[in-house]
């Protein structure tokens, strides 16, 4: 029977949750790297036992760990992330130039075809790649250098490159998203990049229709249709049908279109999940009710999914890398909260249960569907 492995990064360590394909009984392993901020862990689709983990600390900086046995044992790999050439400056919060300074890895995206190749999205925003299993890292500096880099500015959470989507139909195409710069695309394997933010409107920045400066929180795509992108922006849920060339809003009847996560059902490309948060000033769910919203129409028409989720006095947040889906049938949906809960729905969102309830604040959730 198939198995599930959920990789959970938290403020104080990593946890690995495992179950069989029924997804009812769970084993919890951890904390791994206890006391460290674990921004993200992700397994290779080529070799699921190869897992990359981002371990960081305000005291001791960045450490990268790699497991080759599914998270049972770990070894450190390279932690030297050096910007290519002269790092230059981006804008600081007050609009003054500020030197690019590496702070941490927010997201690892292992290659779809090679277990030793992995991309790292970092703060201050840049994209790095390793082709030797994480031992050494090289910046794909065409992203920062494509022209708008000096205009990028951090959001309150830092100027992070948090989303990396590899196009399964075109190995030369990669999408990334940066807070608070926007979405970007390469069509030549990372050499050259351009902003893909046409149609985004952010009324809270000086030029609401600017080429860059939009606080994109998350992008998602379905592998069968990678030209269709879904976006949870700071405010607004957006969709592109042309690989980011243009965007249109699909917030529809959501109770709030602010939020962080967005994901797509594993078998239904038009079924999309978001988790509305009340506002950017109040980072908790509207009305104290934790509700995932599902659209089966690719947006605009949303239904609340509440069974098994707290419907009163709930004031947690769900951060941008903390939702994932498995590829079983029916599709499993997972998310983690800043209150330390990780929830699973084994039926596409209709019913939910808490796998764990008292972890440290959850930063990321990734799911591996094992043979």
């Amino acid at each position: 029977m198939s198995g599930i492995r959920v990789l959970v990064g938290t403020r104080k360590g990593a946890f690995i949750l495992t179950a069989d394909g029924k997804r009812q009984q769970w084993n919890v392993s951890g904390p791994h790297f206890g006391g460290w901020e674990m921004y993200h862990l992700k397994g290779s689709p080529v070799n699921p036992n190869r897992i990359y983990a981002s371990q960081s600390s305000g005291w001791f900086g960045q450490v990268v760990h790699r497991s080759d046995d599914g998270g049972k044992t770990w070894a450190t790999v390279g932690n030297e992330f050096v910007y290519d050439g002269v790092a230059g400056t981006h804008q600081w919060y007050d609009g003054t130039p500020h030197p690019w300074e590496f702070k941490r890895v927010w997201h690892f995206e292992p290659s779809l075809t090679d277990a030793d190749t992995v991309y790292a999205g970092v703060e201050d925003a840049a994209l790095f790649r390793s082709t030797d299993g994480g031992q050494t890292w090289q910046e794909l500096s065409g992203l920062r250098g494509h022209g708008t880099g000096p205009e990028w500015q951090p959001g309150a959470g830092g100027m992070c490159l948090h989303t990396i989507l590899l196009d399964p139909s075109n190995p030369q195409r990669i999408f990334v998203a940066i807070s608070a710069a926007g979405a970007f695309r390469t069509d030549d394997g990372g050499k050259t990049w351009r902003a893909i933010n046409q149609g985004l409107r952010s009324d809270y920045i000086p030029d609401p229709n600017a080429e860059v400066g939009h606080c994109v929180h998350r992008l998602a795509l379905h592998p069968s249709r990678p030209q269709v992108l879904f976006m949870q922006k700071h405010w607004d849920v957006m969709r592109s049908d042309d690989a980011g060339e243009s965007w249109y809003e699909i917030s529809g009847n959501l109770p709030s279109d602010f939020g962080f996560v967005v994901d797509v059902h594993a078998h239904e490309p038009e079924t999309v999940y978001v988790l509305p948060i009340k506002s950017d000033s109040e980072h908790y769910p509207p009305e104290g009710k934790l509700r995932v919203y599902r659209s089966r129409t690719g947006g605009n028409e949303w239904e609340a999914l509440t069974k098994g989720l707290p419907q009163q006095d709930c004031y947690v947040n769900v951060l941008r890398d903390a939702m994932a889906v498995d590829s079983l049938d029916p599709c499993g949906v997972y998310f983690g909260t800043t209150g330390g809960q990780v929830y699973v729905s084994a039926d596409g969102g209709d019913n939910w249960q808490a796998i764990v309830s008292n972890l440290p604040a959850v930063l990321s959730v990734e799911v591996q569907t094992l043979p």
Partner: protein
Amino acid sequence: MIRVVIPYHLRTLAGVSGEVTLAVSAPVTVRAVLDALETRYPVLRGTIRDHVTQERRPFLRFFACGQDLSHESPDMPLPDTVVAGTDPFYVIGAIAGG
């Protein structure tokens, strides 16, 4: 032998308990001690000093014999009692809750 005390998380990372003892050739300086520490435990590279600039990470400080050496030149010789192994060289992290 030079005695070095590092914070809990770095001991865990390096897989050691208690003090670390290192053979360091003269002149024994902060730079020489950290070079020797990182040679013995490569996993610590980047966790105490920046990879490129070699600057001390902001939340860490260096002490020996009750003196704060954090702002001294990394090439200044360490006190004789550290060189003699009587007193340890400390890498200390800022105190924090949460």
